[in-house]
């Protein structure tokens, strides 16, 4: 297997930096203590909306549900003028065609979860076909899962080659690599998996599928952001980040923005470089925006169902 990024010196991943658990958790906690008010808050919230990958990944998804989601992606809350759209919608490969029709040229991207999401327990050729199917149907981004079993066994070459193979199958689509941090258990392993994914050709690294608890947490995201920073210093290449699952409140989303800003800098503060994988976050952000505008606390009854 030829690695896409074979122009890099591939390091020995067993030597990836160890993570100071207490230090990382305390540092992550600090980001929640920033005070963001009025104009900065409104701008921050609009940026959050623009970074959301509006997601539906359920066995019971129907064409109707996906169409509804695509409508919502473009019309978050029409009563509030000047709102951005979300960054992308995130669906299963079988729904990509429907989404493509529904989104048209709105600029909202289509992300598809491929490679036997969420478990990733399938042979490689199936995963590659899954990926190609999504890309051929018009997916702009592919969210793949790594083989956690192989990773935990220590078979890093397998994981590396698999990511590289999927990257090749993606063509022009950007590749998000889901580490499923809830199954990796320790920060050391999260850091190691991040390094493998980035060297193997990931455009994004993503925390979770949303199917396993815990999903995205601030410390885990911080570990991954620091891996991105180190990779950038070494290679000069920017990698994007996507925490997913469990971020449902506007306040928490602002804390994540603070963390990105203070860890990677303002170059990463756009939806090309940072995303939230979420389904219920958008409504909470909308409620806060309307509250800032009207001065009145809002009720979920007056916002569209997601």
């Amino acid at each position, binding site marked *: 297997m030829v690695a896409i990024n074979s122009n890099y010196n591939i390091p020995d991943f067993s030597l990836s930096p160890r993570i100071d658990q207490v230090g990382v958790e305390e540092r992550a906690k600090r980001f929640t203590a920033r005070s963001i008010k009025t104009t900065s808050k409104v701008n921050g919230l609009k940026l959050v909306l623009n970074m959301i990958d509006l997601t539906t990944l359920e066995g019971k998804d129907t064409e109707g549900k996906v169409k509804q989601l695509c409508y919502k992606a473009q019309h978050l809350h029409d009563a509030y003028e000047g709102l951005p759209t979300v960054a992308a919608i995130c669906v299963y490969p079988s729904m990509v065609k429907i989404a493509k029709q529904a989104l048209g040229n709105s600029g909202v991207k289509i992300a598809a979860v491929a490679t036997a999401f969420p478990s990733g327990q399938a042979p490689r050729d199936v995963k590659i076909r899954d990926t190609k199917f999504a890309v051929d149907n018009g997916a702009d981004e592919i969210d793949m899962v790594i083989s956690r079993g192989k990773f935990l066994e220590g078979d890093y070459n397998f994981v590396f080659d698999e990511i590289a193979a999927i990257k090749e199958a993606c063509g022009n689509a950007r590749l998000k690599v889901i580490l499923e941090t809830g199954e990796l258990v320790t920060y050391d392993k999260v850091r190691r998996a991040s390094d493998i994914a980035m060297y193997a050709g990931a455009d994004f690294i993503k925390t979770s599928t949303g199917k396993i608890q815990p999903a995205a947490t601030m410390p885990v995201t911080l570990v991954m952001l620091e891996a991105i920073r180190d990779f950038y210093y070494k290679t000069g290449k920017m990698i994007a980040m996507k925490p997913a699952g469990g971020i449902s409140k506007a306040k928490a989303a602002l804390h994540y923005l603070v963390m990105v800003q203070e860890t990677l800098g303002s170059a990463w503060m756009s939806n090309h470089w940072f995303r939230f994988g979420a389904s219920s976050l958008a409504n909470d952000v909308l409620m806060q925006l309307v509250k800032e505008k009207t001065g009145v*606390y809002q009720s979920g009854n007056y916002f569209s169902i997601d």
Partner: protein
Amino acid sequence: MTRIAVLKTYKIYIGGQFPRTESGRYYTPFNKTGKPLANMCLSSRKDFREAVVAARNAFGGWSARAAFNRGQILYRIAEMLEGRKAQFIDELLQQGATKEQAENEVNISIDRLVYYAGWCDKYQQLFSAVNPVASSHFNFSVPEPTGVVSIIAPQQTSLLGLVSVIAPVIAGGNTCVVLASESKPLCAITFAEVINSSDVPGGVVNVLTGKVAELAKYFADHMDVNATIFCENDIDTKKLIQDKSALNVKRVFFYDDVKWNVADAENPYFILDTQEIKTTWHPIENIGGAKAGY
């Protein structure tokens, strides 16, 4: 050796927890002789917001309980209050009541809870109706709880007024956020301790202390509150509440001429105030040659 008295700092009651106000502000109410009573939380609009979230989360479970079970729980509150009578009498004495008044107020409060406990599974029959209609339908109307109710409690009593406004609201399956009497707040938080140990799920009753002038606006304009109750004859505040409540067409009730210590202050119409009437048309066949109807 003389002992220095400990001036208690009362907390507020949100979602079954006793946090301090997020604002970090406190005030000290005084009794008639100028003696400080305690340190009370000066709640902010954010405390109110948190309380509404807790009340909304608790609403589904509380309204879905069997009416009989809600009655059991209200009766349990009465029992627990009975057991802590002495503490309430002591607090009422501190706040300027005579011994006789204090005992009377606690007794009526307990009786009032028992009264509404009894109504929990009975007001539905009283306020429901089977309606005569011209088509072949079984048509009936039943009361259902309106949702989250914000309440600014009566200012002149510390315990009785508070109990009298909370009991009918929760008896009817609603959840509530209550602002205690500003000048006589002691019993409110002690009553929250009673509620907390009476099988009442967290979030069904939330108690704040603070200033009416600061919080009335938010009690009235929050979009996730379905009804609001105000108990003072203060024209400006009443106007403000009516005005702000129009935003989401809240139900507004002014209990400003109720004497809480007499029998008139307890009746099932207080429960009806925070109920919505749902009418159902159920198609039926004509049975046994009878005409359309029920």
